[in-house]
């Protein structure tokens, strides 16, 4: 395997959690809910996935635990913001702080343990294709899930009736209510999908990226995912472009630093953020399309007048 292939493999591993978390948040925001707790749900997913794997010996149970913990955690957010109509921004921030704290507490006994890496699933024949084979068909379950989810979410949002309802709730919740769509239930489901995706992204961190538990191991990826959603103007494929671009530039700058390129390391560290923002701004420069894709009632609480 050449160095180029090795770099690409690390890029995929680095990009997958970003794509997953951003995709979940995209669905949540398309329903009109702004959940700033992605970082907290992600780190909870990482901790619970690792603990469940250590307890049972099966990383697949770990994946389920990661998804479930993220979804349950988001349910707390849903209850506070949708049922009790608390402020979404403040609740989301609190969720992040809570997630970082709780995960550190429950994971403390597991710090330093060596974990079980999620095994690769090798597609016969396909994996023998030179270059592409090892990159795309000798991967772990979470990578395959991330690709399937992107296709699934794209189809769901823009082809299915349920996805149309979800977008309508995000565009104008009072109109959706007047049409008889259950706004609160739709938003609960969207929030939980977002939580599940963030939990899965966390599981990828503690089962694939670095199979161990370190406190605070999400390391700001939740925030990157949030930014990706906005700069991708709420389109799933743009999230993939942004996620992989960010992964690619952050891995290449690591290699560049290792090879001692004569550029200040601070600049190199900042490069992934700059590159991603510039590219996504360029692809979303059409203001009319951006306006049409922006969920108009994002972050606005809904209280039906009964």
């Amino acid at each position: 395997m050449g160095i180029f292939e090795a770099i690409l493999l690390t890029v995929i591993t680095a990009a997958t959690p970003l794509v997953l978390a951003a995709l979940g948040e995209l669905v949540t925001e398309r329903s009109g809910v702004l959940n700033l707790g992605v970082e907290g749900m992600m780190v909870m997913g990482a901790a619970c996935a690792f603990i469940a794997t250590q307890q049972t010996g099966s990383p697949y149970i770990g994946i389920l635990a990661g998804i479930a913990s993220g979804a349950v955690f988001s349910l707390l957010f849903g209850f506070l913001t949708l049922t009790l109509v608390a402020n979404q921004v403040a609740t989301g921030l609190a969720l992040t702080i809570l997630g970082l704290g709780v995960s550190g507490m429950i994971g403390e006994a597991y710090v330093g343990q060596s974990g079980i890496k999620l095994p690769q699933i090798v597609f016969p024949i396909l994996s023998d294709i030179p270059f592409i084979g090892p990159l795309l068909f000798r991967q772990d379950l979470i990578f395959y899930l991330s690709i399937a989810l992107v296709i699934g979410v794209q189809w769901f949002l823009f082809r299915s009736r349920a996805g149309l309802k979800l977008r309508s709730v995000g565009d104008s919740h009072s109109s959706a209510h007047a049409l008889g769509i259950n706004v609160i239930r739709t938003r609960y489901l969207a929030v939980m999908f977002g939580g599940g995706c963030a939990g899965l992204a966390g599981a990828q961190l503690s089962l694939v990226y670095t199979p161990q538990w370190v406190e605070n191991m999400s390391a700001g990826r939740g925030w990157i995912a949030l930014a990706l959603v906005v700069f991708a103007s709420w389109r799933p494929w743009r999230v993939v472009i942004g996620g992989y671009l960010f992964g690619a530039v952050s891995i290449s700058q690591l290699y560049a630093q290792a090879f001692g390129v004569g550029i200040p390391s601070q600049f190199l560290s900042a490069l992934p953020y700059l590159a991603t923002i510039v590219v996504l701004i360029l692809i979303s420069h059409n203001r009319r399309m951006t306006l049409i894709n922006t969920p108009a009632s994002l972050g606005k609480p809904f209280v039906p007048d009964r």
Partner: protein
Amino acid sequence: MPAEGESANSPLLAVGNLTKLFGAFAACNGIDLDIRAGEIHALLGENGAGKSTLVKMLFGVLSPSSGQILWQGQPVQISSPSAARKLGIGMVFQHFSLFEALTVAENIALSMDPGVSLSRIAKEASDLSHAYGLPLDPNAHVADLSVGERQRIEIVRALLQNPKLIILDEPTSVLTPQEADRLFETLGKLKAEGRSVLYISHRLEEVQRICDRATVLRHGKVTGACDPRKETPSSLARMMVGSDVAHVSAEGTNTKGAIKLEARHLSAGARTPFAVSLKNICLKVHAGEVLAIAGVAGNGQGELFDALSGEYPVESDDVIRIADKPVGTRGINTRRLMGAGFVPEERHGHAAVSALSLSDNLVLARSQSDRRAFLGGGVLGLIRQDAVKMAAKRISEAMDVRKSGENPAAGSLSGGNLQKFIVGRELDRQPSVLVVNQPTWGVDAGAASRIRQALVDLAKSGSAVLVISQDLDEIFEVATEIAVISEGKLSDIYPASELSREKIGLLMGGMYGKTGTAETAHAH
């Protein structure tokens, strides 16, 4: 389609003693109403009379506090809009329940049976809309459509359900006279098919023209049930308002004074993708006259107001002149200091801060123009509360603003009273130039006639007044001269006495007669 053999005298829908309480306030109080099959039934009333609350209960958006609803003789609970639709009730909302980010077909699909594919819905909607003379492109985004086209979507959406009763909430408030005529033809077709229409309006002329029966509401109660064709406009108005409405007349204003406000070939680009750009607008307002600018909403009225007031200054100084001095690049305060006053369209959040008291709102608008009177402490600019409160009281008395306390929050006033206050806030300065946008939008008839009279009186006292309005009744009441804005272009200015409603309707559609015909052909 209504079932055959239904007896003509048993009502399709009967409402008995229906009441809706919001806290202690009864928005609807013991309403009785019956609608027969195949009739167009008018529901008349002022803003706040309870019309919208009543129809929201009929459509399952709100649940009644007490009372009963009989549908084809059977008592029913209408718990949700989809339950209403299943019964055969369709609704076209006043503030459209459309999703701007979605296409026409997607908007319609949301209220349809989920089993039907989007492409079939698109085809059915397109066919139906052409059959009723309301053509629609199912793949257009709603954000790109005019208000009239948006209303068509709502009507087609309701019709696709094959309803027995269609409720229309103030449907013509956003239409040109020609568009309204087209709507009336469609309603006639529906009636001929045996469907019933509940037609909500405060426009008496329309109701008399198309409705078979009318129920009048005031303060949440039924104050009259009649055949509108046998009544006179003033007898209907009395049922609606409870007293006679003062007549406003522009008589006594004239165009012979000096030019106080002028726009010379004013053009401005659109600031947002959904805004309208202004194209080569020329106008002159003389001292002593009221120039009214008519037009359907969203044709550049807001943009024109912004440019004239200086909220968004334009690039060249010379295109806007106040009292013959160029001010195009100057901000709003500079223009105010030159004796101009401005009242924007939105009461809440633009003309007034809802959460602040009336006196605070007064300071916000006039802290520069009345610096001496309202601010003390030299550079500190401390607010002289006593002086400000006195002024707020003076304005409230002059304009008959009815409020709950000495100095309540702006948001606690009803629309009409707040509008009287924000217009009065400018009139109190005796401005030599006044620009107002939609001065009586959503305001009850009493307050509207008060505001209109005040504008005419200001012009009579020698000021130049520019009124931008969608309400043709208002325009004919106050205007000395009239122009029409359409797609950011202004028609020629005509003396009010020379214009008919039909002519204005044509101008609203962009038919400019001697000027600009070629240009409009371009724009389409």
